[in-house]
């Protein structure tokens, strides 16, 4: 009998259980992830290209791409700047309550998105704790989308930059200082380049997460067509009208974007590992 062991194994191993473990893992992966995901593409290919194109390029859908991409990009950029700052402060400076704050950075991962959504909406509403001090409307506008996406993307940059910063050799900075570099020069020319791959990875992860986010955004966005409707919401509204073809077409656009980003992130992470392993 031909087994996976004989077929796939590159190196002989005395350990048992390869066939069973790999077989179960692959089967489970197929049934839960791969076959269901392929349904999206099969459904699209079974329809006509014209319908597909008409759906994904209709003005309302295009407006939603612009909002989703724009708000995700700005949120990821803000998170790159402040995430770097937070990671820096957590790694380099002692201050009271540091451990608690370090642990709380992961809150957006742990807090259900619906809870984050209603909390942010209430805070940034015009009579909310924060909204009342702002001269412009946040809740129920595109700015609200940006606020929600900043919240959910916050831990990514901190958590990718932090370990690299911890492993950074102090000797490099000392050498730069001995050679006459100012602190700012050392940061810009020595530290920042070393952090760049991790920073970019964190940025890409936050951006990718923001593109697909739904729960926290729909409460604060107000969901006005052409103005504050995100792309995932359009999939839901098509589904509610039983327009499965339309919903699937938009899903394909989102999936392809997500896969391209995933590829970019994998390459970035390989780059980070190479830089660190040096």
């Amino acid at each position: 009998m031909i087994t996976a062991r004989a077929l796939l194994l590159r190196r002989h191993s005395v350990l048992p259980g390869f066939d069973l473990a790999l077989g179960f893992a692959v089967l489970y992966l197929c049934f839960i992830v791969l076959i269901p995901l392929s349904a999206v593409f099969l459904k699209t290919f079974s329809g006509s290209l014209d319908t597909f194109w008409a759906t994904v390029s209709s003005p309302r859908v295009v407006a939603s791409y612009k909002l989703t991409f724009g708000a995700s990009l700005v949120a990821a950029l803000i998170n790159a700047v402040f995430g770097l700052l937070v990671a820096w402060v957590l790694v380099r400076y002692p201050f009271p309550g540091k451990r608690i704050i370090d642990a709380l950075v992961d809150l957006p991962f742990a807090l259900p998105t619906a809870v984050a959504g209603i909390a942010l909406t209430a805070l940034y509403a015009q009579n909310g704790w924060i909204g009342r001090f702002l001269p412009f409307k946040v809740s129920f506008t595109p700015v609200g989308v940006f606020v929600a996406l900043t919240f959910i993307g916050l831990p990514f940059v901190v958590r990718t930059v932090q370990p690299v910063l911890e492993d950074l050799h102090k000797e490099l900075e000392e050498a730069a200082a001995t050679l006459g570099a100012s602190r700012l020069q050392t940061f810009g020319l020595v530290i920042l380049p070393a952090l760049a791959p991790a920073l970019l990875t964190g940025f890409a992860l936050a951006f990718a997460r923001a593109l697909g986010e739904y729960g926290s955004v729909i409460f604060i966005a107000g969901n006005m067509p052409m103005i504050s409707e995100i792309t995932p919401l359009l999939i839901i509204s098509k589904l509610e009208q039983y327009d499965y073809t339309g919903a699937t077409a938009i899903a394909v656009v989102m999936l392809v974007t997500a896969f391209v980003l995933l590829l970019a992130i994998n390459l970035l992470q390989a780059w980070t590992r190479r830089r660190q392993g040096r």
Partner: protein
Amino acid sequence: MSAIPSDIVRPGEEAGAPVAAVRPLAPPRLANAVSEPPWVRRLLITVALAFLTLFLFVPLISVFVQAFAKGVGVYWAALSDPDAVSALKMTLLAASISVPLNLVFGVAAAWAIAKFDFRGKDLLLTLIDLPFSVSPVIAGLIYVLIFGLQGWFGEWLRDHDIKIIFAVPGIVLATVFVTFPFVARELIPLMQAQGQDQEEAARVLGASGWQILWRVTLPNVKWALLYGVILCNARAMGEFGAVSVVSGHIRGQTNTLPLHIEILYNEYQFAAAFGVASLLAGLALVTLVLKYLVERRVKASAAAGDHE
């Protein structure tokens, strides 16, 4: 190496000057050269904390404040409402099915990937992470395309009176999908780092595969395993988008806690919505505490492993 330190001329020390004449050393200038002036430190700490306060701490605190805004009576009424109780049960049910399933998958995948060298390993690793890059809404949509009325098995399921979409199985499937990678991705790097020496030794001494798994491998990774389960559970209980697509929002039947919050919020029952939300926020805080404790154990056991 030993010759180098004596060659260094520190500030305030003349080369060749008698040692006794050296003044007590001022803190070496290098220490300052690799840090920032105190005012810069304070400024950076202040800005970082202000950012975290605005985007993290205030939203978290506001959930609890709003939950009790109309008093403990309203809070308690929101939690003991039959719809809230049934939503809680549904959330617990979905988590109690999806977490063990993904746990078994995580162990199996990690065993194959970490202990063996086979073709297609990198592809498998990428595919395991795939659900993280899929929007939750699409995670729900894919099951509607398969099991929904217009889907692949829609007619067959209807003829046999089996409900998957807008019923419990759909909610469980969507939850399994979004929490798929959590356990696997915590176990794989650790088990790869640990190698297979101990397992091979056990094998040579005559242990069976299951004995190796239970007595050697799992004890070695127990903290990482727990860590993965905690994260998996938090996401399973809090998932909103994917579950929203497949649940059908039938009150008292197919509502989970996050969906119940949405309904209450849309009905302008803000205090009740925040009351239920405070339950999930409490769960998130418990998750963070457990995560913090387990993370310390993982680091400690990894450090101990290094010294062995």
